[in-house]
């Protein structure tokens, strides 16, 4: 397992994939954060409450919704690139235990996802606190509360990235896997959440966004109204279970397939 882990980490540090995806996540988070902060408390359509309030500050801290989706895509791309670039042949020649390779890939992707999530959380926190202090507001949330949401982004990003590896191993075709992940996050979960809110809270992207601080009816993309956040540890367990289930499903099916 050590060799597989070393190889997977080295794969991630010798290309620009993680850096590129992290830059994209930070840029989107900062853009949404600034748009939210600039219109906070104005009462306009999608505007969040004033940053002087705990709700407004929390909403602004949770401008990491797209970063979470990018974290899931990072894991998906890590897994599917092996097939797109035909490097899977050498990977499985070097390490014949395919389950071990999958596990090592999920661990490496989770670490990269955590880095991406930390960078996005830092950007969101910087924007929120920067706007709040520039307006002369006293911080409406305590340090631990802020750490709770930023930590949620980091953990959720890590777990979504690991789940992305499972999805990417199940759907080897890179474009197909990316479309599936985006459609799931931006369409399926929103539809299910809006129609059956009691089920919506258990869906991975929704659970992740709520760990990062999104609330019922808030966030970008917006959490459907009526979806109540799972307790923080329960949300983490849901994400970990989904990541594990995707990896196990892949391990029992596609990962055993012939490498042609």
């Amino acid at each position: 397992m050590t060799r597989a882990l070393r190889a997977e980490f080295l794969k991630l540090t010798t290309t620009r994939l993680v850096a590129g995806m992290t830059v994209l996540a930070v840029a989107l988070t900062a853009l949404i954060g600034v748009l939210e902060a600039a219109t906070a408390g104005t009462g306009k359509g999608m505007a969040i409450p004033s940053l002087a309030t705990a709700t407004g500050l929390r909403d602004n801290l949770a401008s990491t919704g797209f970063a979470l989706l990018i974290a899931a895509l990072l894991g998906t791309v890590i897994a599917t690139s092996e097939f797109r670039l035909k490097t899977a042949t050498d990977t499985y020649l070097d390490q014949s235990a395919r389950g071990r390779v999958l596990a090592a890939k999920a661990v490496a992707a989770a670490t990269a996802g955590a880095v991406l999530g930390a960078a996005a959380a830092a950007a969101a926190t910087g924007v929120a606190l920067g706007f709040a202090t520039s307006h002369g507001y006293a911080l409406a949330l305590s340090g631990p509360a802020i750490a709770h949401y930023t930590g949620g982004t980091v953990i959720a990003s890590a777990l979504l990235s690991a789940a992305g590896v499972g999805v990417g191993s199940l759907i080897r075709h890179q474009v197909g896997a990316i479309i599936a992940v985006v459609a799931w996050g931006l369409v399926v979960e929103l539809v299910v959440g809006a129609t059956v809110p009691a089920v919506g809270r258990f869906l991975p992207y929704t659970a992740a966004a709520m760990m990062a601080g999104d609330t019922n009816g808030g966030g970008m993309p917006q959490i459907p109204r009526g979806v109540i956040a799972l307790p923080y540890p329960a949300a983490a367990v849901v994400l970990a279970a989904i990541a594990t289930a995707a990896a196990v499903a892949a391990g029992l099916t596609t990962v055993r397939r012939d490498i042609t």
Partner: protein
Amino acid sequence: MTVIEVRGLVKQFGPATVVGGLSFSVGAGTIAGFLGPNGAGKTTTLRMLLGLVQPSSGQAVIWGKPYRELGDRRRRVGAVLEASGFHPGRTVTAHLRVRCAATGTGRSRIDAVLADTGMTGLAGRQTGSLSLGERQRLGLAAALLGEPEVLILDEPANGLDPAGVLWLRGFLRQLGEQGRTVLVSSHILAEVAQFADHAIVIDRGRLVSAGPVTELTKTARQVVTVRSPRAEALRAALASEGAAVRAAGPDRLEISGLDTEQVATLAAALGIPIFEITTDTGSLEQAFLRLTATEGRPG
């Protein structure tokens, strides 16, 4: 001692039988050419030998064990199966570092394999900017990292320019001189005959011939071309000796069934001058086509 052994190997993809009951073996220290036309099942066989494709039935083993069960396999068996299996954004050295990490090979080998394959000057280049020939060399470099006793190479000459083919030929000969066992797939018999001492010929997933390359080349039909001002007289004489003769021009004959010495001796006995006499080197490929029954079949 047998190193590679394939016994009754079968692979079916849906209704199609790609490999149908193939058996052959390769002894230690042998350079074996694994020959067959495109679609003969060579790549599928090699992938089954390396545990990447599950056989429908039969076995393919190295030192008596399936590849996956070999201890320290990547230090004992090196393989190059895909010329394009590189991340284009990774440098040559980074690619080899990843392979070292995956196999537990010391990084000190990287410089050595780069030198062996003439890639030292390209160490910092991204693999995406390498030519096909350079990627083939990088594949060979990676396969040699563990200093393996056995090398399995799938069409390593594909896409190489003449200089690359020449280099590869010398490189493979060198591997043979080092006592390694090498199994090289190809669809060009004349090329394999330059470096291999054993040839395994398959077609449509079945064994056609296996044995020393010299035996295979003996079966090649020799065509002798002669240029003479008395071609017609010579033609009649050769035909009476049982040779098949074809006029290839006003003063040129193509003769099958007699070798150069017999043709020249006959001409001398009859006082017929000969200005030129050659043996057709394309006959190896004709032998291959006959063996694989692909003569006249579209490629």
